[in-house]
């Protein structure tokens, strides 16, 4: 996908092992394309994602961070994504409070059957972040190449 004269946002996607990572695999199985600048990191459960990882990604130059987990009620560990939901609601609200564009962060529930949703979500998220341009507000100057 070419947006903004070739500018492609850097996206880090944390995916839970049981639903969303499988959903991403399914997108692959069905050859549903999404931008190559989306890179997935596998975690056992969305509740494994520490806010520190998200800030770290921004600090090191990510333009958007998305967290994908099982739909509420479907967590492999029964309650993990409920904690995720609270943590991220508060964290993202705080980032917004600090003036960081709210469109750069996202939580999306993607089941193992939702390959199409995974691809569509990534396409849409990339477009949204691309429209914002580079993330300047959270980057760390020392981490600039």
């Amino acid at each position, binding site marked *: 996908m070419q947006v903004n004269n070739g500018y492609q946002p*850097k996206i*880090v996607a944390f995916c839970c092992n049981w639903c969303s*990572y*499988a959903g*991403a*695999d*399914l*997108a*692959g*199985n069905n*050859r*549903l*394309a*999404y931008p*190559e*600048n989306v*890179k*997935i*990191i*596998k*975690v*056992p*459960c969305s*509740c*494994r*994602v*520490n*806010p*520190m*990882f998200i800030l*770290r*990604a921004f600090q*090191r*130059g*990510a333009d958007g961070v998305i967290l994908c987990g099982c739909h509420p*009620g479907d967590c*492999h*560990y*029964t*309650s*993990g994504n409920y*904690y995720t939901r609270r*943590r991220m609601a508060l964290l993202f609200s705080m980032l917004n409070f600090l003036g960081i564009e709210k469109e750069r962060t996202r939580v999306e529930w993607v089941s193992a059957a939702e390959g199409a949703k995974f*691809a569509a979500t990534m396409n849409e998220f990339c477009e949204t972040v691309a429209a914002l341009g580079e993330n300047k507000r959270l980057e760390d100057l020392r981490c600039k*190449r």
Partner: protein
Amino acid sequence: MQRIGVFVCWCGSNIAGTVDVEAVSEALKSEPGVVFSTNYQYMCSQAGQDIIKNAIAEHKLTGIVVCSCSPRMHEATFRKTAAAAGLNPYMVEIANIREQCSWIHKDMATGTEKAIILGKAAVAKVNLNAPLTPGESPVTKRALVIGGGIAGIQTALDIADAGFPVDIVETKPTIGGKMAQLDKTFPTLDCAACILTPKMVDVAQHENIRIFSYSEVVEVGGFVGNFDVKIKKKARYVKEDVCTGCGICTEKCPMKKAPNEFNMGMDNRPAVYIPFAQAVPKVATIDPNYCNMLKNGKCGLCAKVCTAGAIDYTQKDEIIEEKYGAIVAATGFNPISMDKFDEYAYNQSKDVITSLEFERLTNAAGPTAGKLLRPSDGEHPHTIVFVQCVGSRCAACAEKGKEYCSKICCMYTAKHAMLTRDKYPDTDVYVFYIDVRTPGKSFDEFYRRAVEEYGVHYIKGMVGKVSPEGNKLMVQASDLLANKQLHIEADLVVLAAAIEPDKSARPLATMLTASMDTNDFFTEAHPKLRPVESPTAGVFLSGTCQGPKDIPETVSQASAAAAKVIGLLAKDKLTGNPCVAHSDELMCNGCSSCERVCPYGAITYVDKEFRMPDRTTAIRRVASVNTAVCQGCGACTVACPSGAMDLNGFKNAQIMAEVDAICK
């Protein structure tokens, strides 16, 4: 420093078609720690696996990265390959360059670039991997079933038949539960006692089953495969092994004013009693609340008439300690209290009864010997009104009742209505309902028979008020389909009271660290895929303690739970998942945040002595993870502010390294 080998798979043209595999293996060569990098057509093939094995030996690799298909496909394969070559299987990381790269990107240049970055992230992670060994724990080959109703009975029988010893703990003096109180069962109308009591006898006679009746679980420690349970055997003041169940004591007992629980308090029983004729164990129990001898030392008649010498007024509660490999909760249900439902006049009139009381009234062994008679005056009722959904399907905001559907009421009400009309054709029978729910084998046919063949008046609408007037009950109701108000002069009103989990379930769940929903039903490990397991490993669910169920469903679930227990007990050792949480005691604050988010109750706290920098010692409370119970979700790692809690295989540092590699 690790010595890492990188193996890039072509997957035929699946990967190689859009990813320049040669460029990937070349690029990863210069990553920190990488000492060997190659690519091959099919890494998962025997030849491919040999390449990996040989490289591990030749280059003394301490970790490997396979750039291939999804780890969901072949992670297990490559872990085995590594293990076969003497490398710890958890030193393997997979870079998913097929499903998440080559298959979705068309352009060779960008696909290759992404594959390289994914490879770098995997290398960065493997640099921080540490060998992991799954923990092993032994399994005590004995199961505990808590609750001796039909659910507990079926579970126990199935486990015992598979050859494992089972203990049943039942709070009542006999097993049998609610089913023993029922008259006939829908939709086949066979008598409950005829199908239940033989099973109770089977339980009593089974060499692998012990029954702790009149007992309760008071403490549960340990974890899957190794539970330590304390059971309190309440004093029944009768030596269980001596009593022959002849019943002479119950006949002679002069104190006959105790409400008979088995008949829902509709008649009385003696202070020394056997709940019903087919009770198992068939031994007498003295009720200390009514026995004159126990209350004030005056009487002692039962001891005199007992030829076996079984009466023992000095008996004390006894604590039994036992080890179990698995625990099944089968604590069952109760009808909810009708105290808050004044509109139905339950507490004002004896002729307003619950369905379970109706069940006793029609049971041949009940207080009326099976004759349908009004509790108030013993007259035969002519007009009978059944009210469904009493306390079921209430609005969430309502102060009384339950939000859920109790599931069994539609069917048993149809049964009651049908049987009444069958036996007493002179009666008028009305059923008020919101909806009639009859999904189940032969259920709808059964309900339709009640309406079509037996002439039961089914009226869609709710009863607004029941007012006792003289010896009649004035029932005011609405008929929603005819859109009119009805006034029925009834002789008997039967309330289909909602069912709720037994009160003992909540404290039991706390002991088991098993989770419950807001209604105090036990939660399943997965609502669809693991419906008979609790999220707490080694704890299983049987019957209505998990949710409202009828008998066929209860029995199926009971057998399913038994199958799960057998599967567990059949193992000699439990091998854990090594990707579990662990706490760095030096950093742990003991604040309990991790314990509170753990869905498995895997975290406990211990007081430990630490040497302080000034050479003194201090006792600190620190978290300790039971690796046999932890499932590795990682919820605790984020709840922990100090980072003392970390997750093997997905350590903070590892994930951060991946983030760094991707964002670079």
